[in-house]
């Protein structure tokens, strides 16, 4: 098979066009909607804690439950277009992390305030992001590490403004990352 340089250039240009079209189309399925959803939920939880105290914190499980349900719906809708078959080993790892994360505080009989409990749950969620990042897409790894650092800084350095910190740097980072993934990610 012989091609002239002009024909080769045309073929390479067609490849680049096709790649760019697919890149743009597929960005809508890279998980940005989940980041927006959880960013909003983190902000809502932080604001409930900030302005309504323990009464607001009692609503956290409902918000998290709603978030999980909406995430499942989103995953189901998006999986109609672009999907990655479920990796049972990955699900097993996540299940193990969550079970052990639930056991550890009980074993340690850890006394904790609401901020520490939220930070602990947030860190467990970020551990799941890190694992997902190692397994699937690197942006989740970096996002998990960055928010982990932000949670720790907020908890230990700025306890007086912890809930504002979580809203801005936790929820805000999730939302901004969602925009980045939607419009700029590879």
């Amino acid at each position, binding site marked *: 098979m012989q091609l*002239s*340089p002009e024909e*080769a250039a045309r073929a390479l240009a067609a490849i680049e066009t*096709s*790649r760019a079209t*697919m890149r743009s189309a597929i960005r809508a399925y890279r998980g940005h909607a989940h980041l927006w959803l959880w960013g909003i939920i983190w902000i809502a939880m932080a604001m409930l804690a900030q302005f309504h105290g323990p009464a607001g914190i009692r609503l956290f499980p409902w918000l998290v439950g709603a978030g999980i349900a909406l995430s499942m719906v989103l995953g189901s809708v998006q999986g109609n277009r*672009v999907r*990655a078959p479920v990796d049972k080993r990955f699900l097993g790892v996540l299940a193990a992390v969550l079970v052990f994360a639930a056991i550890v505080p009980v074993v340690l009989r850890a006394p904790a305030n609401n901020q520490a409990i939220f930070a602990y749950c947030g860190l467990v969620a970020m551990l799941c992001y890190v694992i997902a990042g190692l397994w699937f897409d690197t942006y989740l790894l970096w996002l998990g590490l960055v928010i982990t650092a932000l949670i720790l800084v907020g908890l230990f350095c700025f306890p007086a403004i912890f809930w504002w910190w979580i809203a801005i740097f936790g929820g805000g980072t999730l939302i901004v990352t969602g925009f980045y993934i939607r419009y700029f990610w590879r």
Partner: protein
Amino acid sequence: MPELDSVIHQPVRLQIMAALGHLGAREQVDFSFLKNTLALTDGNLGAHLLTLEQAGYIAVEKTFVGRKPKTFVAPTASGRRAFEAHVAALTAILKPNKIS
């Protein structure tokens, strides 16, 4: 020196392989999504996918989502390698000294 692949070089198949090459290692794309993204017709896309599947360059999985039949497509490892070799061959035609 990489060689051109006559199966991949056909313009529509080139377009398809370039698009599928953008998927992650475990990802699959829906037939209709691919058709709309590449602005192809059902028949045209189906025929070229069959050729690529017979060459072992893509894997086609037919399944049901709810009660609707769906067809998902993904490049195989050999398909990715063949496409990369084809791109390298095209690049070598443009820049023979640089590649060799």
